[in-house]
């Protein structure tokens, strides 16, 4: 269910590396389902710096507001305007239409500090067991 070509953080964000060296960042299906209906996304504009595992912004569902953490360091290239205008895209299509940010990477090696899909699924099952 979690695409094998992505990398995953413990905070339930994903990163997809494109051929031009930029990445897309979003939240996982598990995160989207836990949040419930997303109604507001507050993320930095193009040009802003991101630091790995530091607070990136906020995502709000009908019931609660949660912090987003950047899975990588880099610079924001673009925000997904479609998702800002229609946040339910994050629920409907978390790995595709519901991406949040496009960013350039400061250090591509950071991707190796993130989990593979298989590791992430193990992480989810161990998290769910406590």
């Amino acid at each position, binding site marked *: 269910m979690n695409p094998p070509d992505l990398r995953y953080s413990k905070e339930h964000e994903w990163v997809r590396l494109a051929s031009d060296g930029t990445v897309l960042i979003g939240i996982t299906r598990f995160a989207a389902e836990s949040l*419930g*209906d997303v*109604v*507001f996304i*507050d993320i930095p504009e193009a040009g802003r710096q991101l630091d790995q595992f530091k607070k990136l912004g*906020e995502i*709000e569902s*009908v*019931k609660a*507001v949660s912090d987003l953490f950047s899975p990588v360091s880099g610079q924001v290239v673009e925000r997904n305007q479609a998702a*800002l*205008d229609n946040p*339910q895209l994050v*629920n409907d299509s978390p790995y595709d239409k519901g991406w949040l940010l496009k960013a350039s990477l400061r250090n591509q090696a950071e991707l190796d500090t993130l989990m593979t899909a298989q590791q992430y699924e193990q992480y989810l099952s161990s998290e769910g067991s406590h």
Partner: protein
Amino acid sequence: MVGEANLKRTPLYGTHVGLGGRMVPFGGWEMPVQYTSILDEARAVRMKAGLFDVSHMGRVTIEGAGAATLLSRVFSSSPTAVKVGRGRYGVICTPEGGILDDCILYRRAEQRFLLVPNASNADPVVEWLRRWGSGVSDARIAVITPSLAMVALQGPVAASMLQGLTSADLSTLRTFSFVEEKDKGADSIVARTGYTGEDGFELMVPSGNVAGVWKVLMERGATPCGLGARDVLRLEAGLPLHGNDIGLTTNPYEAGLERFVDPDREGYVAGTGLRQIRDTGPSRKLVGFKLLGRSGITRHGYPIMDGSKPIGEVTSGGYSPTLDMNIGMGYVPKSYAAPGTRFAVDVRGRLAEAEVAPLPFYHRRRDP
């Protein structure tokens, strides 16, 4: 949430779990907050019909020759003005004018009333009735919550969906009217009431029958809806939620509930306090507001600001799927209460611009 201490379950608990409902604690009960999506469930109510378990609310019978006398002491308007077969919304106030609860009072017979308080207030309300009823002869109070379950069917097609399941002619049943009938030999109530701003019904049926009623209504196309959708819908309809928008530290005049209050009655325990508030006029008002653009989601407790000066507090807020905008309610000084007035809401350190909007935010379309 399973295993949380002392949470009560309604007779539909198994039904909710079977439908994949996400169960959460609410007012001392374990209730479904959503089955699939809060927003999709809310949209189903606006477009067609939704089905809610509201069995967590209280059902309290007050009967006897002294029932009306007791209720007149505690309820915000005269119970004798309520005709048999009618219900009336009102509040229960402390002598100072604070709101202990808001509820609907149904009159089932000359000397028999049914009061429906909020889930978490059911015990305090019963205690309040006993306290003020101690000197009233022949006013018997009985909590029938466990034996009489309650579901709400709400939406533009609710009447056609329900017609045929009841012997009543729903086309002539007015809003806030109800009919009584026997359901498998036991008393049931079909009331044209609700908490969504939509046409609809609240059905009180014996607990043993309610799962069957639920199943039939789902087969007829009603969408099961959780507490999340209920909260979205009632906010769109501008209906206050006790504990959020109204409570012991607010009074009915500032909350915009003055039309449900008649303080000029002999023996009314809140009469003096409420007359004083009425005569001086409230200093603040509960208003609705819209966030300009998509500048943020406001929530209970967020400060309302005029520049850097806090002027009030948000009591409810969220995204409105029907209007596709972010809305809220809160208390502001009277000088900020006119529709069109602008202020800001402090959303965790960021100021979001808002404008006072007339309540309700959402008006249902009525039949021509």
